[in-house]
């Protein structure tokens, strides 16, 4: 079976762009990706795309050109981008197509996501009594994790400090100023133990990736960035997910653990082989949990890793080199693809100020979200 290669990547800066809707940000990213690949829209044979709040991706053809291509919309919550990439890779692996696109974009209103209890199978009282907040879930989950693994609140602050330090070096990031640890630790609490510097915000942005067969990629002549694997998994019994009025006393594993294991098996690699990783950091606690859930360190070692700087850009395993969701915000449809975009840039060696030193060869992404889905990719140059 042919390897799938990422031959082009485009991004619309994350954050807030007044006067440009989510779809137009998507179109912007596609045009940039086409230019990056050195092809025209007419050369693209198929597309998978999605957004959570900015409309049906396939309607983009009215802006990009009515070439008649197959364009399938993907709606998979926080895994929308990852699922679009997954589907695009499968279409090439099957031999049906040589070159295609995965695109994700979004534009969310300010503030925490508003949710309707009925849509989650919950009674109205659940919302009326004040439980319908994603921030509570993240706070309660990491509160338990810190307790079980003897980690301090300062570990959360260190994750945020690193995110803003990396974001300051990243053109596509939203938060571009460093914030020191003391300021972070003293900020107003949102949902204990997480304060306002420890949560990402819903935002705007778009990413487009052009994928091609190995043969086509060689013809195009750019750097060969191989998508070794793209895996999406759903939750096992006993996982702890958002908007749960009850959870089982008997605790289980996580969607991320399952996805990571499958991805490493498919790629024939282990965590020790990865040179750079982008891990879901909806809030700082998520990055901490995901360091262990993806197999990069044992549960409980994260604070030591952070203090020693092992996840810094010049550390043993740089994590979230563009500042992650904490610095970029989280436009749901684009967020997972942003991670892959960043890895493409890192593997090409064109990340400038935030470039991981030592000529990285392997790169890992993991996106996690409601209702307990996780998507992992591994790239290799």
């Amino acid at each position: 079976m042919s390897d799938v290669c990422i031959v082009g990547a485009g991004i619309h800066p994350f954050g807030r762009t007044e006067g440009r809707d989510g779809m137009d940000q998507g179109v912007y990213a596609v045009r940039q990706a086409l230019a990056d690949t050195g092809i025209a829209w007419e050369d693209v044979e198929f597309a998978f795309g999605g957004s959570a709040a900015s409309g049906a991706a396939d309607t983009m053809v009215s802006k990009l050109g009515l070439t008649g291509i197959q364009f399938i919309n993907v709606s998979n919550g926080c895994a929308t981008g990852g699922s679009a990439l997954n589907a695009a890779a499968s279409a090439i692996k099957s031999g049906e197509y040589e070159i295609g696109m995965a695109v994700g974009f979004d534009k969310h209103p300010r503030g925490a996501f508003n949710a309707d209890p009925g849509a989650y199978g919950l009674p109205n009282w659940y919302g009326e009594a004040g439980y319908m907040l994603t921030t509570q879930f993240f706070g309660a989950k990491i509160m338990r994790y810190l307790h079980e693994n003897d980690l301090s609140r300062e570990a959360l602050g260190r994750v945020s400090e690193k995110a803003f330090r990396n974001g300051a070096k990243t053109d596509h990031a939203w938060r571009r100023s460093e914030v020191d640890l003391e300021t972070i630790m003293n900020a107003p609490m949102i949902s204990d133990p997480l304060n306002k510097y420890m949560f990402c915000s819903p935002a705007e942005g778009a990413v487009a990736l052009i994928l091609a067969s190995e043969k086509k990629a060689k013809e195009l002549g750019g750097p060969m960035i191989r998508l070794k694997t793209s895996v999406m998994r759903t939750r096992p019994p006993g996982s702890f997910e958002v908007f749960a009025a009850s959870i089982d006393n008997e605790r289980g594993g996580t969607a991320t653990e399952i996805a990571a294991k499958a991805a490493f098996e498919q790629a024939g690699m282990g965590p020790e082989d990865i040179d750079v990783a982008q891990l879901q950091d909806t809030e700082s606690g998520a990055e901490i949990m995901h360091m262990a859930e993806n197999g990069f360190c044992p549960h409980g070692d994260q604070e030591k890793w952070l203090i020693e700087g092992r996840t810094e850009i010049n550390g043993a395993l740089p994590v979230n080199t563009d500042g992650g969701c904490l610095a970029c915000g989280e436009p749901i449809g684009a967020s997972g693809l942003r991670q892959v975009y960043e890895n493409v840039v890192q593997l090409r060696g064109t990340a400038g100020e935030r470039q991981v030193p030592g000529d990285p060869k392997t790169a890992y992404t993991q996106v996690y979200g409601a209702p307990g889905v996780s998507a992992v990719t591994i790239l290799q140059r």
Partner: protein
Amino acid sequence: MNAQPIADNLFTDDNMTALVGARNKQTGHISFPLPLTPNDNIEPIALASRGTVWTYTVQRFPPKTPYAGPADPENFKPYIVAYVSLPGQTMVESRLTGVEPEDVKIGMEVELTAIPLDPDAPASEQKMIHAFQPV
């Protein structure tokens, strides 16, 4: 008229002495609350009124709708949201009452009570929600 529970089927009775859980007749698996639509495989069960705090957080800002409690930013009082482990049954998401956020400890013993969603509402209009308090 006395204060009423915020919803039917939340408590076992109007004295609000126990929460209603959902027991799967085939597997014995227990969850909370009852499903929105009746299901032949599910039977109601009274949940234990004592348990321990498994984890918690504090809601520090007034939530947006559908929250129906007091949300005035000037007078908003943060509230504690916990998962309370009921032995042999399930962990229930619940407010904690009668304890300040800084005094909550994972593992502390708590028991069921009911509190008004808006303590300033007239008694006749009060909607009661479930909460656990330190034993």
